[in-house]
């Protein structure tokens, strides 16, 4: 993913110049003084002594992408029509406009897909591991070659800023395939004193927040270990998974090794309950995760669950404050807060709280919310109308609970699903907005005095996916990372991901790890 911080403003700032022909995009406010220049006519807004710093529109070119009007299911190496003959619209959440028709897979399609996977397992599991690796390497390379196209489609379909899909989602997805490809012929070294074998047919259900990346997290280790797969993308973001199906087809991967079945919850449930499926890997809400755990009870199916979170991001008074503020912003506003490991509970040591909160508010004023396809955009569109309603409902709940809300006065686009970055001050442990996962750009802030107090508060939650710690003191970091009940702890950084780095939760954030050598275990048995 390179040396990329998720939310940065990297472009040259230009000053507001009166030119009605060019679209101007303005951050919510600015304290940048205007600089006179004889070459340009300066807007009369300088009357108020301050004016808006702005950015030229910098839309990503979308002309080079190849999208069909209609997408079918990818089963047994071919694109086939759904048994139901039904299709649904997938939209661009930034414009609310339809992009393509997507096949609505149902239980019958899942049955066909699972049977294809079962059949393909016979030969794929016996394929020489070195040869297996080559197919996976090839997929990685083909994603890299078409990275920009994938980035554009990811942003169109999911609403995330193009800068994130371009610099994070797509490169990481390719890297995951590349990393796990190399494991295929080295598995005996991963498990001391054991001979790992593939588990069989794997059912994988992935969420809408990182559509291609989650597909890569699921597919790469499953294929490297010799399993065959039926993958169900999230209903709102199927496009990059279907483009991946095209790559898989072109890569020459044997028919039936991977099937991609689009559809809704009923298709997911059919996959979970199918008797020929040997393992379920799920990323999504804790609610659905619990349903899956219950559904497979007594069936001998292996399960891994990567579920919700409500991460504590803890700022001590000896932290590098400016970097910590960047970390707070990246922690909660990365991908519009649609991140299971988002740093959604901020804990600031009391003696620096005023300073940190002021700097945070100032920083929020510079965030650009709007067209996800614009390369300057920091916060794109909320993934769906349903999710926007959910977030807005939580904002109402927070206000009703008596917390103090802060939003910048930025303008939101008139079309599409957008949400202002939001802070809640004076929150307490018992508030619903503190306890429940909102999955949006909403941050709750609490203060603390002692390290014991903040550990207690941070851990006092059913989730345990991730946490952040900001302090310049090494011993404090190790004390904290040892005591925080979370699968990933970012110290003096936040929201970093890598194929070699295991990711997954404690407690109600699920079990099993994805990434690294630990990510192989869910896909083998001894």
């Amino acid at each position, binding site marked *: 993913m390179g040396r990329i911080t998720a939310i940065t403003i990297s472009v040259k700032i230009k000053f507001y110049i009166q030119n009605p022909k060019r679209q101007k995009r303005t951050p919510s406010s600015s304290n940048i003084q205007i600089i006179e220049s004889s070459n340009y006519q300066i807007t009369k807004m300088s009357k108020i002594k301050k004016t808006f710093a702005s950015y030229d529109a910098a839309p990503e070119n979308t002309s080079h992408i190849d999208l069909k009007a209609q997408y079918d299911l990818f089963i047994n190496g071919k694109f086939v029509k759904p048994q139901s003959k039904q299709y649904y619209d997938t939209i661009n959440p930034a414009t609310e406009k339809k992009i393509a028709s997507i096949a609505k897979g149902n239980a019958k399609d899942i049955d066909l897909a699972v049977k294809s996977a079962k059949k393909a397992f016979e030969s794929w599991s016996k394929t020489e591991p070195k040869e297996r690796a080559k197919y996976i390497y090839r997929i990685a390379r083909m994603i890299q070659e078409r990275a920009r196209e994938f980035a554009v489609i990811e942003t169109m379909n999911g609403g995330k800023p193009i800068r994130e899909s371009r610099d994070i989602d797509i490169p990481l997805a390719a890297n995951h395939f590349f990393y796990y490809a190399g494991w295929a012929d080295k598995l005996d070294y991963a498990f001391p004193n054991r001979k790992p074998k593939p588990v069989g047919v794997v059912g994988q259900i992935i969420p809408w927040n990182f559509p291609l990346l989650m597909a890569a997290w699921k597919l790469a280790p499953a294929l490297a270990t010799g399993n065959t797969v039926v993958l169900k993308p999230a209903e709102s973001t199927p496009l990059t998974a279907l483009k991946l199906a095209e790559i898989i087809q072109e890569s020459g991967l044997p028919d039936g090794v991977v099937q991609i079945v689009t559809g809704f919850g009923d298709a997911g449930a059919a996959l979970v309950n199918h008797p020929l499926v040997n393992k379920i890997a799920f990323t999504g809400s*804790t609610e659905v995760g619990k349903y899956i*755990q219950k559904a497979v009870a007594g069936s001998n199916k292996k399960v891994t669950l990567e579920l919700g979170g409500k991460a504590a991001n803890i700022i001590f008074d000896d932290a590098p404050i400016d970097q910590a503020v960047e970390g707070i912003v990246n922690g909660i506003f990365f991908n519009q807060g649609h991140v299971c490991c988002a740093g959604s509970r901020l804990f600031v040591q009391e003696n620096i709280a005023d300073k940190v909160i002021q700097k945070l508010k100032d920083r929020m004023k510079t965030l650009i919310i709007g067209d996800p396809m614009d390369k300057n955009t920091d916060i794109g569109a909320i993934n769906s109308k349903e999710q926007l309603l959910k977030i807005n409902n939580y904002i109402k709940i927070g206000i009703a609970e008596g917390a103090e809300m802060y939003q910048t006065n930025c303008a939101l686009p008139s079309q599409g699903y957008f949400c202002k970055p939001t802070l809640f001050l004076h929150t307490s442990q018992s508030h619903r907005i503190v306890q429940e996962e909102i999955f949006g750009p909403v941050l709750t802030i609490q203060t603390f005095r002692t390290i014991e107090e903040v550990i207690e508060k941070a851990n006092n939650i059913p989730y345990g996916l991730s946490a952040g710690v900001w302090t310049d003191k090494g011993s404090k970091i190790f004390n904290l990372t040892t005591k925080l009940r979370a699968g990933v702890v970012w110290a003096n950084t936040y929201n970093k991901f890598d194929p070699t780095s295991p990711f997954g939760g404690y407690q109600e954030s699920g079990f099993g790890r994805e990434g690294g050598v630990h990510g192989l275990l869910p896909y083998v048995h001894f």
Partner: protein
Amino acid sequence: MEILKTYKLFIGGAFPRTESGRYYKLENKQKQVIANMCLSSRKDFRNAVVAARKAVEGWSGRAAFNRGQILYRIAEILEGRKAQFVAELLLQGSTKSSAEKEVRLAIDRCVYYSGWCDKYQQLFGSVNPVATSHFNFSVPEPTGVVCVIADENTSLLGLVSAILPIIVGGNTCVVLASESKPLCSITFAEVLATSDLAAGVVNILTGNSKELHTHFASHMDVNAIIYCRENAAEIKAIAELSSMNVKRSFVWNKDWLKAENENPYLIMDVQEIKTTWHPIENIGVSGAKY
């Protein structure tokens, strides 16, 4: 006149009777009553979980080396009381040779797992070569409170074989002993109580799985459950109820006499992998990435 032993429960380092006042008769092959065993209640289980939760911080916070010494101490004490365990096994219907073998294996297993206390982290942890400028490492950490429904067919070996891999890694546990062969469990509790194992790390109940298994599986402050029997209905019910708090649920229905069923993968079943990231740069310098 022989003094008969009263078999009680083991909760939080103490030996209380069941709060319910209930008991069941344990008989030998000749249908003679050997002992009145406590028939543990849901409330006993809940008390035991409170004790186990309280013990997690201290036990998981011990140096791994120290845990290894305490497990080795368990082997030493068990060795010294070998004859008592053999006698109890005989009383519960074992032959002399199988009783001696079972006790020998139980002692050896304590020594085996004692050695793992400060080693599994190195085998199953990792330093991860991430592409960004960060130092990144993963270590196993205890899941927390684990409850166990122990093997029904052995009195000592199954119980010991399930407890050890759990406590090696800093977890604490609540164990339901074999209902038909419960004697060694409470005597083993006496071994634990004199081995410098902190109160609450291991808690042992006697009673009936049919009555208790749903309470074990549905308790919201239990992190994992291990079932060592073969009742399919109970396995299913436990797995279903575990979903209430995403409890880790395992079936260890194993032949504990076999050497292959002592291994570090059992330790890892009740470990979580924690990954920590930190930038490799001077904080605050130009170009540093956070």
